[in-house]
């Protein structure tokens, strides 16, 4: 990609200005990753008054400044420039080399010094150096703006996801307060049950959200110990048996009798809880969940195959995003925070592992997790 770098040359000597322009006329800068090519656009001024106007008008990336401007103090000019927000990188041209003055110029804000008479190659090297700095600053600014935008989007979605259950509960309470379906309390049992269900969902969402932010910020105290992964999975499966029976789902587990693995036990529980509960929730009556763990030479291969409703390609691509819940006629009554898979993927990444899935509508889903063995 070709981008533009603006250069402003301010020097009282016409010959200096021309020489700078000649040296840079055919010069361009290539970014270190070679993906971006920067061409220079140059403006010139012979006085600081003129230079100041151009500085504000064109917002240059690099300023090449002479020390021969009439009635101007070089150090004062430098200080005024670096007070500007997003000020340019300054290459200060120096007529007579003097160590004390050189130190003062650098301290006042010059990025580099260029001693006259001008040597084209030196000038080009200094411009390249300044360009690298400018590009880094641009990237940092873009990154900060992007981060701000992402944070805003994330907070917006959280606000929406939390307000929905609150609005539902508020709606039921309003109906009860106004005795909209009569005076008999029995008429409101279903509303109370639904309200409690929505509050439970909200609590789960808050827990998931805290898990997610703790993992992302590295704040969670991880305790890596050796334990039998088979035992953890057995416990997770047992905990899900009532939910599976309610939905008439059969769960099977194929794993070595004992499987020593070093990890944070709570993180492994989160992974398997999400795998198993999703496989049950998005299943069909009389369906199945087949879980297996295989120890391979350099990794653990965890597979979870369900006979559930499956997903199309578009839904699969969106699946690991935050607050993504696949909304269709088959999933509309299935509760969830939309954070489980995102949390699971982030934990797997902490172990340098990977998660993949194969699925098709009506044909179930196979999740496969690979965790490297240390």
């Amino acid at each position: 990609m070709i981008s533009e770098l603006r250069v402003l040359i301010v020097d009282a000597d016409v010959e200096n200005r021309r020489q700078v322009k000649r040296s840079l006329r055919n010069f361009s800068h290539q970014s270190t990753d070679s993906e971006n090519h920067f061409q220079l656009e140059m403006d010139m001024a012979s006085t600081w008054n003129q230079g100041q106007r151009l500085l504000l008008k064109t917002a240059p990336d690099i300023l090449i400044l002479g020390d021969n401007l009439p009635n101007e103090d070089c150090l004062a000019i430098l200080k005024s420039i670096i007070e500007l927000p997003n000020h340019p990188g300054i290459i200060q041209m120096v007529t007579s080399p003097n160590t004390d003055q050189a130190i003062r110029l650098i301290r006042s804000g010059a990025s580099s010094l260029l001693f006259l008479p001008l040597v084209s190659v030196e000038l080009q090297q200094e411009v390249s150096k300044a360009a690298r700095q400018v590009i880094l600053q641009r990237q940092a600014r873009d990154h900060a703006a992007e981060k701000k935008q992402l944070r805003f989007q994330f907070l917006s979605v959280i606000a929406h996801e939390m307000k929905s259950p609150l609005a539902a509960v508020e709606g039921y309470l309003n109906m009860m307060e106004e005795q909209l379906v009569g005076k008999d309390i029995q008429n409101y049992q279903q509303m109370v049950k639904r309200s409690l269900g929505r509050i439970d969902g909200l609590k789960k969402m808050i827990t998931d959200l805290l898990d997610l932010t703790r993992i992302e910020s590295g704040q969670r105290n991880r305790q890596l110990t050796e334990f039998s992964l088979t035992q953890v999975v057995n416990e997770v499966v047992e905990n899900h048996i009532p939910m599976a029976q309610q939905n008439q789902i059969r769960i099977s587990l194929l794993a070595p009798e004992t499987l020593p693995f070093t990890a944070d036990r709570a993180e492994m529980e989160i992974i398997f809880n999400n795998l198993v509960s999703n496989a049950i929730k998005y299943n069909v009556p009389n369906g199945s969940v087949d879980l297996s763990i295989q120890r391979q030479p350099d990794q653990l291969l965890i597979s979870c195959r369900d006979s559930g409703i499956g997903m199309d390609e578009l839904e699969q691509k969106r699946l690991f995003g935050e607050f993504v819940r696949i909304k269709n006629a088959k999933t509309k009554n299935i509760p969830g925070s939309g954070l489980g898979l995102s949390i699971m993927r982030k934990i797997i990444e902490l172990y340098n592992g990977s998660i993949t899935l194969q699925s098709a509508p009506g044909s179930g889903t196979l999740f496969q997790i690979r965790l490297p063995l240390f």
Partner: protein
Amino acid sequence: MSQDKATILVVDDDIDILEQTCTILQGAGYKTIAADGEAEAKEILNNQRPDLAILDLMMEHMDSGFILSHLIKKMDPSIPVIIISAVTSQTGLHFDISGQGERSWIKADAFMAKGNRPEQLLGEVERLLG
């Protein structure tokens, strides 16, 4: 049109809000047609013409409510549409239907936040049907 015979299309993918809205409207004598999303609402609109529609904004898509509102107004511009949503000023998305500029592209007659009291909803419905 007599108020107690008006048929109102209610579209919301939150099953609780859908049931609450229908119960409130039925209690006030309206007939309701419930749809739990944009897709189901589109199917209903192929065969039926409601007297008023109450649409959730974010369903299958971020702007499902606007899509449906546009469709209804194309079908019959005289059908009043209320867009109701949990997404309001706290998300930076704020709509003021009273401005002509926004009304021209949003194509809805009223915008309400979720969690309204029954009388607020009924008041708005009566105003638009009246």
